[in-house]
């Protein structure tokens, strides 16, 4: 019923359109007719109890898992269910995994340099030089993620929070249209969590962002539309205040 309410909107204006996707693992339905959309430039928070299908949803969208049925349309042009991970990454969908993995011995600047879009072969990189535009782009991203002062520091010496930001920067610098962040504030201090919320609010608009999160304070600070997943489909959608009022949401998730 809720899915129907969501899809009533004209889907062609959406950046990402997940349409009636079902995924089963050994008879367990991880996703059960999941439908939702993300608008261009929108930031969306996805919450839900363990096993609600949040990770499976991201796996389907980024090409790691193939659904049993349903479609995932990106820019109304690409059916992501027929593409592999590399192809999906190349059309502008980035994903940040939970555990930050940066190159510890490289400086913050060099980490971003390696992530910078460009030719990836041995010969081009042997003779590659950063031009002014690329340098400005790296500076810009350094500014955005607030690590301008740490540019020459080896990434391995950064704090956990800074590593998460650097990794977000490594995604941003590839200019993805749509960004998936899996629990970006896990393990962060309160101050870092607040800064991360600022950071994400700052980059929304230019990129669409989907944040999967457990931390309710953080979701409140993001102040965006929230999608609540439960048992593989959308249970409720709206502002955090709105979904928190929903008796079903309280029942399955917030009430616990």
């Amino acid at each position, binding site marked *: 019923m809720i899915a129907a309410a969501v899809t009533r909107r004209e889907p062609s204006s959406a950046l990402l359109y997940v349409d009636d996707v079902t995924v089963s693992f050994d008879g367990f339905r991880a996703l059960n007719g999941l439908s939702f959309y993300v608008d261009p430039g929108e930031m969306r928070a996805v919450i839900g109890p363990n096993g609600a299908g949040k990770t499976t949803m991201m796996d389907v969208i980024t090409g790691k898992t193939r659904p049993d049925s349903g479609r995932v349309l990106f820019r109304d042009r690409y059916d992501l269910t027929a593409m592999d991970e590399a192809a999906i990454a190349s059309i502008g969908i980035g994903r940040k995994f939970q555990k930050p993995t940066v190159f510890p011995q490289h400086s913050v600047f060099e980490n971003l340099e*390696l992530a910078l879009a460009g030719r990836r*072969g041995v010969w081009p990189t042997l003779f590659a*030089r950063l031009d002014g535009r690329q340098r400005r782009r790296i500076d810009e991203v350094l500014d955005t993620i607030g690590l301008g002062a740490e540019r020459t520091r080896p990434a391995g010496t950064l704090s956990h929070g800074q590593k998460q930001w650097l990794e977000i920067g490594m995604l941003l610098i590839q200019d993805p249209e749509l960004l998936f962040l899996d629990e970006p504030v896990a393990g962060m201090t309160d101050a870092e969590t607040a800064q991360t919320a600022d950071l994400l609010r700052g980059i929304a608009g230019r990129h669409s962002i989907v944040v999967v999160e457990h931390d309710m304070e953080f979701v409140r600070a993001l102040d965006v539309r929230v999608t609540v997943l439960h048992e593989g489909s959308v249970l409720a959608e709206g502002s955090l205040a709105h979904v928190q009022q929903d008796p079903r949401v309280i029942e399955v998730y917030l009430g616990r």
Partner: protein
Amino acid sequence: MSLSPDAARTSPLARIDRPGQTFLLLLLATAVAVPVLNLAVPPSSPFHVPSWLVPLFGKYLCYALLAVAVDLVWGFCGILSLGHGAFFALGGYAMGMYLMRQIGDRGVYGNAELPDFMVFLNWTELPWFWHGFDSFAFALVMVVLVPGLLALVFGWFAFRSRVTGVYLSIITQAMTFALMLLFYRNDTGFGGNNGLTDFKEILGFGIQADSTRAGLFVASALALGIGYVICRLVVTSRAGRVMMAIRDAESRARFLGYRVEHYKLFAFTLSAVLAGIAGALYVPQVGIINPREFSPASSIEIIIWVAVGGRGTLVGAVLGALLINYGKSYFTTVEPESWLFILGGLFIAVTLFFPRGILGSLAGWWGGWRAGRRAARAPAPAPAPSAVEEPAE
């Protein structure tokens, strides 16, 4: 180790750092001084370098080039090759074959066409793979081509199948061991157990002549200098940073879209070629090449040089090779029984107490001292290091 900040990566020369410049200057000075002090200074002078020392020093330089080659793959790309002695030996054999052909009819059996060991084995004609080695140019091409092709083919299979870590080390070790067994056989056609020796001349110059030895010494210094500069330019390029990224977080590099196996193959092949050149320069200076160069122990020894000098520093590899081989020359004459114990003990001590090797530790202390001085000059409280919350990695 962060090689350099993002600024000032303009000209190739600017990419040689302070230790590198110091090393190149010292190398240049040595390349001039040793031949001059040997040839131009009379033996009565205290500054005279005796003739027997020149090829010994030249041998050290070849080992240093070999160590630089190993550091390129191990220190920067994370490939712990325990078989690099094989590439060194193959380059050496290619040069040795040329030197054997140069002997001509001056061998014990006086056969102009066949080297002595073939006459001894009652062979009547030269095996096909010996053809062409009477030409120096052909031999030089083989010095590069044979180790390079072996590395390319071996690496292609290994890296494509994503063999990494200990498993890769073991198969490189198996490779050199297999080659050793092959070269020990008389039937293989490389002189078996005795290898290739009794060389007379190179390019028409007597191999024992002081001037020839001085020339070979200069050539070795040149090869080491050029090899170092090539490796340094590679590791300071973006490709070098990709190699280090692969060393530190291989799957992350792959996730960023880099073809990890291509980078490994490039580093491994370049390294094998440098090792082959080192071997080719080594053979005329020591006067012999035999299958012992393929022994697994020889390859492991190279790793010890690099580890002691400082992995991932290139100059450290040179330092380690020189120090340990000088130690080897010294102790094997003074107290031959003790050398392997000293070598083993040194390796254990370095691994335990100086995991970054001599140069890595020095660089660490130097950096700490400079940071301390900078902090003393600018007493403003630095922002608290935000490493309070270290991730539970």
